[in-house]
């Protein structure tokens, strides 16, 4: 195509230069990639992926089935960018890749942001309908967001030469925009696409923030921004898309949509040399009229209708344009590149084929309201047999359509419709009354002649006539599918792939559905088209992820002591969102060495551990004890103030849910501790029962997990450390017993000290407010120096507890393990508690359930090793259990572990086997308590 020096909305005085397939190309400021290439005579954009046919620009908007390119270089390259949306700028690099893109191979250098917003009325589409809707709603006082995916407002007006109120429609657009921008409660977002509509007015927009600017002028700005809007009302004024016609070689570069040809003229000043128009309706006559006005040769308009007669037809005839009625284009002729050189025209009632030379064929098969956003939330459509298109059927709550998207096609009529819908939307959200609102602007009746019901040119070559140009689906392909017995458009889609391409078959689906209806003689309304799903336009994964990357992906939770752990070389373990020290290697130690050393220190001297991540819940009220009795398998109400008790909770199905120590701080106050991972769940669980089952209980729950930092001081020398830390606290066995709780001053800090042990050793857990945690830790570390105090991590903690046969929720349990399976019969009190009834189900009473046992394997096993009865077996072999925990024990000087084994307690003393990939290991079953069975070490 060529550029007219005085036409279009581009800046003719400002050239930009960019690269296309490695060569430098010039365009004008205001050009898109598509218009700039056309202006440079580049008609062939690439070739189709299946059939390798040359393909070119078809329209002037995002429904174009071929105008895609790989844009950007290096790690910022992005595949399948809409050429009509890519604004050219200096330094832009683009390459021909129309159907299959290439992903970058490194991390994305660009920034994608998100923003939340709220409004009363969100208007999608800034054409006459959308502008009028936004204005009307805003003037009623509503908070309005108006969104359009073009760089400027005006919609179709920018691609046409339209008159509104006897002036160019542009004037009205400019005026409307000024009024909107002056209103502080209106946000206008251009270069922004509404891509997803969800429930209760959750609407997602994608703004192209800086990609139209040369990279060196972006200054760290986001490339794109995802807006998450919550709106009360959504007005969908997204316009309509033009439908092509189906005939042989209709995919040739140069065969374009009539509205697109007009758009290229009015937006970019681009015109063909000779243009034939082929239409089923009046709208395409505008193309002929406008092109003649621009000095372009229009040999003829080919109209399938026998006697077209609307005002536009008359005007065209008045301008001397030849109108060939009852005719059609049946095929096209190529030039050397395979692009369009001419068309073959036939009379529909017979007659010879005639060749007419042209470089562009402007086609119109009618217009389809763009209702995607309405479909996202289940909106329905019906076939309008007069306008020959699907129009919205009813509305979905909170969503209204306006203008061409609602099947209203005249410009003034669109403006009027938008105004009325804007008023109604405002009223629905509590602003003004539609009846008393500002009067609607007038709209003349639309005098367009009736369009023809026509899709496929009869007699055309079916093997080269494309229904879905993007997916290379031809008439022959569709017919073969229909001929094989398929009746439904959704099957047709999945068999032929019609409508599954990058542009989702916006120009293909209606025609394909129409062909199915015709073939089976069914009403089109019944057959319909394959459905639309979000997003309305593709959105990059990176933009959906936004800034939730790295440290912002998921909180890294740490305790106030964490800086010390880092400074002392701890290796961390992820426990839920928490980072916990796993072990503290010294020098070149590996984990095994570090853990052996740490465990030995605890058993022989003293160790210290950061236990702050455990969940803590303050339970207060007269009924606190009774409440806990109903949730724990054991009894808590009999606990004396100043004492602590270990407890286990079950889900209603009787499976172990969580465990922890419960401290009674006062008659009416308990402190419940939970596992690190279980904290939030246990509180929710407790609140659930309290609020919904037992609201009459006098109990108040408060999470205090992060109020308290806790340091465990563990080992035979821990009492010595306490003596030095808290000289006023009598920590002798008589004064401070196992499971006793004391308030004390520790290292000058007000603290709570409890004698709780998860290792079997004499141990003290000291808690201070979280902000004091680090100070406490450092004080303990200093005070412990004379005794060789050794910080240890979760791994050693796990070894030490396993030596004592203590289970870990989530390690020994997996949702299928009851307290009885764990050998906790002594903790299952004879009273009602949540889950108790489940323990009586027949499967729970089976005598061959898996039970927790200790194991002494011949060598250290991997956790997760399965256990079988005999050393000799053939696969498949029944498994009788698996290893849940497995370690080297410093205290025992050998490997050991815990396992769940069928009838395990009866098998103590037996040998079973763990088959590994390359060998089978003998495993002796022992009591779960392997170390210090008599519990002699607990009191030091």
């Amino acid at each position, binding site marked *: 195509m060529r550029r007219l020096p005085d036409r279009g909305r581009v800046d003719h005085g400002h050239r930009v230069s960019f690269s296309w397939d490695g060569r430098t190309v010039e365009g004008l400021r205001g050009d898109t990639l598509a218009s700039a290439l056309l202006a440079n005579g580049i008609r062939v954009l690439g070739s189709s992926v299946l059939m390798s046919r040359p393909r070119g620009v078809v329209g002037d908007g995002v429904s174009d089935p071929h105008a895609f390119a790989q844009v950007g270089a290096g790690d910022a390259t992005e595949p399948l960018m809409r050429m009509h949306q890519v604004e050219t700028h200096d330094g832009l690099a683009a390459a021909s890749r129309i159907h299959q893109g290439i992903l970058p191979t490194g991390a994305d250098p660009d920034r994608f942001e998100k923003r939340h917003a709220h409004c009363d009325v969100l208007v999608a589409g800034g054409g006459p309908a959308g502008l009028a809707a936004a204005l009307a709603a805003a003037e009623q006082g509503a908070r309005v967001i108006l969104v359009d995916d073009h760089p400027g407002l005006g919609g179709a007006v920018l691609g046409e030469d339209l008159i509104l109120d006897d002036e160019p429609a542009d004037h009205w657009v400019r005026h409307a925009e000024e009024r909107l921008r002056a209103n502080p409660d209106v946000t206008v977002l251009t270069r922004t696409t509404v891509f997803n509509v969800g429930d209760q007015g959750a609407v997602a927009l994608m703004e192209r923030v800086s990609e139209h600017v040369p990279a060196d002028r972006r200054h760290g700005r986001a490339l794109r921004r995802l807006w998450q809007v919550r709106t009360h009302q959504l007005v969908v004024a997204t316009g309509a898309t033009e439908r092509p016609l189906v005939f042989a070689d209709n995919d040739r570069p140069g065969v374009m949509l009539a509205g697109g040809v007009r758009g290229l003229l009015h937006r970019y000043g681009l015109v063909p040399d000779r243009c034939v128009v082929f239409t089923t309706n009046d709208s395409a006559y505008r193309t002929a009229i406008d092109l003649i006005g621009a000095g372009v040769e229009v040999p003829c308009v080919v109209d399938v209708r026998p006697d077209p007669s609307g005002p536009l037809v008359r005007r065209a005839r008045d301008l001397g344009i030849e109108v060939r009625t009852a005719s059609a284009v049946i095929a096209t002729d190529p030039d050397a590149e395979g692009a369009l050189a001419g068309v073959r025209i036939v009379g529909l009632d017979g007659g010879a084929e005639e060749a007419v030379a042209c470089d562009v064929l402007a086609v119109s098969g009618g217009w389809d309201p763009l209702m995607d956003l309405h479909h996202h939330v289940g909106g329905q459509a019906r076939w309008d047999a007069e306008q020959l298109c699907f129009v919205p059927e009813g509305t979905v709550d909170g969503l209204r359509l306006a203008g061409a998207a609602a099947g209203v096609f005249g410009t003034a009529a669109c403006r009027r419709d938008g105004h009325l819908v804007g008023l109604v939307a405002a009223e629905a959200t509590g602003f003004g009354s539609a009846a008393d609102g500002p009067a609607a602007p007038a709209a003349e009746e639309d005098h367009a002649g009736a369009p023809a019901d026509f899709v496929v040119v009869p007699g055309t070559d079916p*093997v080269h006539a494309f229904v879905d140009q993007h997916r290379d689906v031809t008439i022959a392909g569709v017919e073969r599918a229909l001929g094989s017995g398929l009746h439904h458009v959704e099957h047709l889609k999945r068999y*032929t792939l019609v409508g599954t391409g990058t542009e989702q078959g916006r120009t293909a689906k209606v025609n394909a559905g129409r062909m199915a209806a015709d073939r089976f003689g069914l009403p089109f309304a019944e057959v319909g088209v394959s459905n639309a799903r979000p997003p309305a336009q593709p959105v990059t994964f990176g933009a959906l992820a936004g800034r939730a990357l790295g440290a912002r992906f998921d909180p890294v939770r740490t305790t106030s002591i964490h800086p010390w752990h880092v400074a002392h070389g701890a290796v961390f373990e992820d426990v839920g969102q928490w980072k916990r020290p796993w072990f503290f290697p010294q020098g070149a130690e590996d984990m095994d060495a570090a853990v052996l050393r740490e465990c030995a220190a605890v058993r022989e001297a003293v160790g210290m551990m950061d236990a702050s991540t455990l969940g803590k819940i303050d339970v207060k009220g007269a009924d606190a004890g009774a409440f806990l009795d109903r949730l724990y398998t054991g009894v808590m109400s009999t606990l004396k103030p100043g004492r602590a008790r270990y407890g286990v909770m079950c889900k209603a199905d009787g499976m172990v849910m969580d465990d922890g120590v419960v401290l009674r701080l006062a008659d009416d106050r308990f402190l419940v501790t939970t596992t690190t991972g279980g904290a939030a769940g246990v509180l929710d669980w407790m609140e659930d029962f309290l609020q919904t089952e037992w609201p009459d209980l006098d109990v108040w729950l408060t999470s205090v997990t992060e109020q308290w930092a806790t340091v465990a001081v563990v080992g035979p020398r821990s009492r010595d450390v306490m003596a030095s830390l808290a000289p006023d606290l009598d920590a002798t066995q008589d004064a401070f017993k196992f499971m006793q709780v004391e308030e004390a001053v520790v290292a000058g800090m007000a603290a709570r000290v409890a004698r709780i042990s998860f290792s079997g050793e004499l141990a003290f857990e000291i808690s201070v407010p979280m902000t004091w945690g680090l100070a406490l830790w450092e004080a303990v570390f200093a005070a412990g120096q004379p005794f060789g105090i050794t910080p240890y991590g979760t791994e050693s903690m796990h070894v030490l507890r396993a030596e004592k046969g203590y289970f870990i929720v989530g390690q020994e349990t997996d949702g299928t393990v009851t307290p009885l399976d764990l050998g906790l019969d002594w903790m299952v009190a004879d009273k009602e508690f949540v889950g108790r009834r489940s323990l009586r189900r027949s499967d729970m009473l089976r005598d061959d359930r898996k039970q927790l046992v200790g194991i002494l394997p011949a060598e250290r096993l991997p956790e997760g090793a399965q256990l079988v009865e005999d050393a000799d077996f053939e696969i*498949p072999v029944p498994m009788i259990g698996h290893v849940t925990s497995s370690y080297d024990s410093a205290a025992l000087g050998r490997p050991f572990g815990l396992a769940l084994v069928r009838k395990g307690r009866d098998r103590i003393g037996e040998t079973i086997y763990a088959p590994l990939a390359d060998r089978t290991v003998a495993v002796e079953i022992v009591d779960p308590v392997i170390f210090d069975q008599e519990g002699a070490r607990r009191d030091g």
Partner: protein
Amino acid sequence: MDPNEHALHNAPFLWRTPEPKSSYEAVVVGGGLHGLATAYYLAKNHGLSDIAVVERGWIGNGNAVRNTTIIRSNYLWDESAAMYEHALKLWEGWTEELDYEILFSQRGVLNLAHNLHDVRESVRRVNANRLNGVDAEWLDAEQVKEFCPVVDISPEARYPVMGATLQRRGGIARHDAVIFALGRACDALGVDIIQGCEVTGIDVTDGRVTGLQTSKGPIAAGKVGLVAAGRSSLLAAMAGFDLPIQSHPLQALVSEVYEQVLNCVVMSNAVHVYVSQAHKGELVMGAGIDAFNSYAQRGGLHVIEEQMSAGMQLFPHFSRARLLRTWGGIVDVCPDASPIVGLTPVENLYVNCGWGTGGFKATPGSGYVMAHTIATGEPHELNRPFSLTRFETGELIDEHGAAAVAH
């Protein structure tokens, strides 16, 4: 050149579109993959000739066309492993048996482990799989990288990859093609596939099923199999019994089409990602399940956003891939994340449901045992444990915690 030479589907004939007869020996309710597979094996293995599949929409319109097509059999518990492995073996012969290109591609399935708990449970599953005769390997992070170079295994990641289980025989198949293949095979064996026929009532006389009320009129039936996935509860209610099923939205998405970047299936429970690249070149990803009950076949965009930030952890350079289309299915979730296949309180009425987020892979096995159950009135050994009565006894097959259960 004839464009159809490129077409994936190229069968001269698929299936008839008959009107229902007034009565059938057996009727399968639900023309999804499991329903079609059931009818196929009823005809093929059990010689039934007077059978129909009745489908409220078009066959496949439920979860069949919506799933991310992951196939594997590396489940933890013996009962599950046996069922899914049986299915996998059938998959391995299906392209030939059905004489249709279903693009079954055994490209390997990785289940990533990101913390010590994952590692332990993964190793447990690998060991269980091996002893059950299911191929399974444990890979460390380096081996993961070797097997699937695009996965980011850097230790600085928020949740670094600590290793993965690999089932080399796992992979994907083209879901749509399986629908066409099964529909054609059923039709060829004389099964009436009746579409646009919604079951609206189930006739039960003296505790025994006698027929169905449908939008195309009553159909008498000697035996009925309910194979309706997300809508199973609604059908059971028509027959007067309840199922322990909740129907949730599960979303999935595809990207646009790219040159090949991903050679296998990658799943991560901890980071909530599962992805493969389909044969056309689109990336297929599943999202997390939406928490609430729904029959609307859509979920929230926030679930997809979360999924994408999770995806960026594992595949930072998928940042410029683009979401082309998202959709939701209705998944029938059982309390123990295992299916229900077997008898119901109503005589001659059988149920097959509860496959939830992971039933595509089971298709051949599910149809096989369901056909056996309908034909003989007794469960097959493989589905005996998956009975409706297990909820009373507590004999659950809990695949939640341990087995990387999603898909």
